């Protein structure tokens, strides 16, 4: 493995992020090729974490744009500070400044509200990490707009002019795949699919993040989660659920899993009543062995 990639992996581990070669390689490429990285995966597998850890590693600022339905350029890029503009107009009413001067005054930098994208472009000193979180929640129109910004990291504000990034940000996009993203956007990005962690990785995550859990319990939890994700559920539990559960078991001072304990705490892992019913039925029918085969 290339030294730099190994370093990234170590740094991420050092920042309490349990990672693997795939994630480290993608981050390495995103930084060296300086291209946006699109991270997809189920909810709760630690996609957002990647950006946070990356910013910490680089010792730079993390600028986050949380996407939602209806997000538009005014919320993402910039907006004029209207109340301030209105006040300014009122205050200037009695003066004799020309219309041009008045206009120039209220459409100048002090009246500009920088939203995350503009912040990321105008950041000084060193490139920030720009996290565009859950891009699949934004509308397609916004995606097209974003594509434009990402292609040359410059923004034109009609009243001020064109602003070009001196330190183009490192961009991380995450998606839960609630909506299919356009090919154009995918083309522009590096791609990383983060799957549920394998057994060993999940054990490492649990022991790292929930210190109160012993080795045996961590292994049992991870084995259980692994089998649980093969059951036909309407909502598959992610790593976040694993950690919630481990936390709960730890505060109950559990040192191993048994059927009653699982039945009582299943709500930490499954959030859908039908899913809970289904798993309980299987537990009743074939016991814990169904979910934790052999491995102790």
């Amino acid at each position, binding site marked *: 493995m290339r030294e730099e990639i190994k370093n990234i992996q170590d740094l991420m581990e050092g920042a309490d992020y349990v990672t693997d070669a795939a994630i480290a*390689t993608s981050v390495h490429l995103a930084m060296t090729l300086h291209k946006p990285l699109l991270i997809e995966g189920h909810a709760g597998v630690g996609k957002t974490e990647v950006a946070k850890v990356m910013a910490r590693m680089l010792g730079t600022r993390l600028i986050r744009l949380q996407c939602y339905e209806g997000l538009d350029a005014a919320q993402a890029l910039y907006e004029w500070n209207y109340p301030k503009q*209105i006040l300014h107009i009122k205050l200037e009413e009695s003066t004799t400044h020309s219309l041009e001067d008045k206009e120039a005054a209220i459409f100048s930098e002090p009246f500009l509200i920088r939203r995350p994208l503009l912040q990321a472009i105008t950041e000084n000193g060193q490139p920030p990490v720009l996290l565009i979180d859950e891009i699949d929640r934004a509308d397609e129109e916004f995606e097209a707009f974003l594509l434009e910004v990402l292609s040359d990291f410059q923004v034109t504000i009609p009243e001020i002019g064109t602003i070009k990034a001196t330190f183009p940000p490192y961009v991380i996009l995450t998606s839960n795949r609630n909506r299919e993203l356009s090919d154009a956007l995918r083309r522009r990005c590096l791609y990383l699919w983060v799957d549920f962690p394998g057994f060993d990785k999940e054990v490492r995550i649990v022991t790292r993040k929930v210190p109160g859990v012993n080795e045996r319990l961590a292994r049992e939890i991870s084995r259980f989660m692994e089998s649980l994700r093969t059951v*036909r559920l309407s909502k598959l539990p992610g790593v976040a659920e694993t950690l919630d559960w481990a936390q709960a078991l730890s505060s109950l001072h559990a040192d191993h899993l048994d059927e009653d304990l699982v039945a009582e705490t299943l709500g930490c892992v499954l959030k859908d009543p039908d899913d809970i019913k289904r798993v309980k039925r299987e537990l009743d029918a074939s016991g814990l062995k169904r979910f934790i085969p052999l491995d102790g």
Partner: protein
Amino acid sequence: MQNSRDLMTATLAFGRMLRGAGLQVTVSELMDAVRALEVVDVMDRSDVYLGLRTVLVTRREELPAFDRCFDAFWTFRAAEGQGLEGLMGPTQSAGQQGEGDSASGSLETAGRKEAALALEGWEEEGADEGEPMEVPGTSPQEVLMERDFSSFPSDQLDEVARVTVLIAKRLARRVSRRRRPVRRGGVVDLRRSVRANMMKGEFVELRRRERRRRKVRLVLLCDVSGSMDLYSRFLLQFLYALQNVFGRVETFTFATRLTRVTEHLKGASYRRALRQLTEVRDWSGGTRIGDCLGEFNRGWGRLVNRQTIVLLLSDGWETGEPDDLATEMLTLKRKAGRVIWLNPLLGNPSYEPLTRGMAAALPLVDHFAAAHNLASLRDLAGHLTLR
């Protein structure tokens, strides 16, 4: 050791191989791949694999194909102990090997292809040409409209196809024209208000704006199992037409497993679309609607949200477990804006939806209608809206 020219040649060859396997690889991605190889350890298989994957794969669905190609590509020369040089040279044979795989796959289904002849004989070109924009449903066509699909003589098929396309176009217009009228209301658009009132000193007139209506997406799931044979060729024509007049349509066919045919139906003439369809069609007997829906929910659930109309075309002859069907229908219904089930058998006055599958699914369907003749497709118009 490699120089960058070799890397380039190797990468381009690998790119061709990926294209052969169905991945869309652009030139700029290949350039990035070369750059990526310069910053990973090219003698380390895992580094090369992860590096190329990060750059050349753009969605999860492409991963299996990428893995197959990479394995074939790497293995060839690795056996000769040449590390990344495996990326050069062997393309030809490796590429052919990949093609060989798919060829043997289609050989398997070749026997079944005879069954597809009926479909192929039904190709028509009308859909490609600009048709006269007369409104379907007027008198000379009335006979056509009411006639059951299963009873058309072959010489009238062209005409039926043409009308099907017209109907699909009309449906599309209806849906896309529906915009909420912009009345007073919405939110104040401060940006434009400030501009409009700059000289007035007061906010004399407020500018308002309203969110544009979200576009509707259609997801079509068409049963192509044996029991649907008489109808599926008409319905496929209908799907083809819908796919090409609506902007946002995803189409799947199913019998015992689910096949995404969106790409097959796009652009190409109906003749070509049909030929491609017969290649991917699942020719095994029986219908496992529940399993196929499950496959859809898990693999393609992201296509469905409140703005989605799911159109299921099936006669409901379920050979799987009705319980599974009900579970999957419920999952689908929870996510979708509207679920419509079109059943060709419903055109028969004596038919009652008593098949076990149909009975299980029926309570979970927003709209249940016939799809046995052109008139029934035309009547769909009123239901292809979210509310």
